[in-house]
């Protein structure tokens, strides 16, 4: 494609979204007017960098079950926990209220189960008792979606066996451990007719016959017979299928993902605009989590010199989270429009 002004004009319109299907646990949508790299960034960030809650520490008081402590700890870690408004929770490693963990940065769940009957007893996620001292009223509740309201099975106990333990759930991202993933899968597809030849389909006799068309194939025009290959063609429509594990609503996952990318970019802008002054020691006082500077109260450290104005408003908008509608993004409507007078140069 040529770099004509028209191309820049269409770019200015920005991405557009069409939702084709949605439920409490998934959303399918079509993303267009963006390039492949942008769409892929959205996909990657949703999979790996959206913060959620998961059990991270387990203190075992008694375990007379047949399963090893580590085994049960691992199972507990994988239980999806409600993460609505996780922004209210601080990262334990950044928490300035405590050295280890506290009510600001963790949720405590206790499990006490003992089999007294003759039959094998199953211990379910619903048997976890969530401590009331927690950052908000949702965070840390085990996700229970089955009709009987049981949740996932943690262990099975025989007569006389007992399980008594305390779990500490913390906020984290899936880049550190997959248990923090908000999604089980993100479907990502473009060019269902393979017009761009990004895929080299394996076949025995005829690729068209052996590979069933995707469900999105009917949404785009099939290639014309004898049509010449368009060397300038780029993918234009991207079909996402975001499947939540239940800890966040599907729209929240996407909004959080967008926010994470914006924060990454903001960090780059911040570093490049006031970089050089003060040196590393002044700008940074230790390792921090990726979105720490966005979490309102937590922004007290020396992170924000010179970028305070945009982040100040961002903290106000960001704290109310993804529930909001309309133009209010974490950055406000035009985050960089009014930079001339106030602050970062």
């Amino acid at each position, binding site marked *: 494609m040529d*770099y004509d002004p028209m*191309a*820049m004009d269409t*770019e200015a319109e*920005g*991405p*557009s*979204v*069409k*939702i084709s*299907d*949605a*439920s*409490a646990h998934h959303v399918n*949508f079509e*993303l267009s007017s*963006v*390039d*492949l*790299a*942008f769409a892929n*960034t*959205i996909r*990657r960030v949703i999979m790996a*960098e959206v913060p959620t809650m998961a059990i991270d520490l387990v203190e075992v008081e008694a375990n007379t079950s047949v399963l090893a402590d580590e085994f049960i700890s691992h199972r507990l870690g994988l239980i999806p926990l409600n993460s609505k408004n996780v922004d209210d929770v601080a990262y334990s*490693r950044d928490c300035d209220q405590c050295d280890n963990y506290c009510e600001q940065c963790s949720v405590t769940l206790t499990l006490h189960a003992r089999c007294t009957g003759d039959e094998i007893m199953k211990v379910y996620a619903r048997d976890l008792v969530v401590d009331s001292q927690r950052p908000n009223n949702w965070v840390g509740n085990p996700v229970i*979606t089955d009709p009987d309201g049981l949740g996932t099975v943690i262990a099975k106990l025989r007569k006389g066996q007992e399980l008594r333990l305390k779990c500490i759930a913390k906020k984290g991202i899936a*880049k*550190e*451990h997959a248990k923090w993933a908000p999604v089980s899968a993100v479907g990502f597809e473009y060019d269902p007719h393979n017009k761009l030849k990004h895929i080299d389909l394996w076949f025995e006799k005829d690729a068209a016959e052996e590979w069933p068309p995707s469900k999105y194939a009917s949404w785009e025009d099939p290639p014309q017979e004898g049509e010449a290959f368009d060397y300038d063609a780029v993918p234009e429509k991207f079909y996402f299928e975001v499947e939540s594990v239940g800890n966040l609503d599907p*729209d929240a996952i*996407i*909004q959080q993902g*967008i926010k994470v*990318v*914006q924060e*990454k*970019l*903001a*960090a*780059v*802008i*911040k*570093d*490049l*605009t006031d*970089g050089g002054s003060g040196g*590393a020691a002044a*700008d*940074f006082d*230790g*390792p921090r*989590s*990726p979105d720490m500077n966005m979490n309102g109260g937590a922004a007290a450290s020396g992170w924000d010199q010179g970028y305070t104005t945009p982040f100040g408003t961002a903290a106000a908008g960001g704290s109310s989270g993804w529930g909001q*509608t309309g*133009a209010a*993004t974490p*950055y406000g409507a035009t*985050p*960089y429009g009014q930079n001339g007078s106030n602050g970062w140069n």
Partner: protein
Amino acid sequence: MIITDEEQRFELFLLGDDEKKCFETADTRTPNSSVFTFNKEDHTLANMLRAHLLKDPHIIFSGYKVPHPLFAKFELRIQTDGEVTPKEALLNCCKSLVTDLAILSREFTKEYELRKMVGGDSSGEK
């Protein structure tokens, strides 16, 4: 203290003590070019920046590399036509991407709310 060779996975996204997220090094081999080193970032950011920079008519070259797969770091090389410095170009790129993401967020919210209003009863339930 336990000594382990297990990789510490938070090192993938937590900046070290004296690390900056991003800094510029001039590339003296060619005019108007710089290499930006990004710490604790990966292809997620790198490829998006690379692709978006190429839409800027002042950009002659933009490309990135991850010097080693075990270190969360990438280097983005930018060459401009001289009208803008590579740093300005990168800043413009970042700002434009933030705007795009804001639009995406707004569009998605709009669509999602619309969807909820229309099909809320049939599809919104568990």
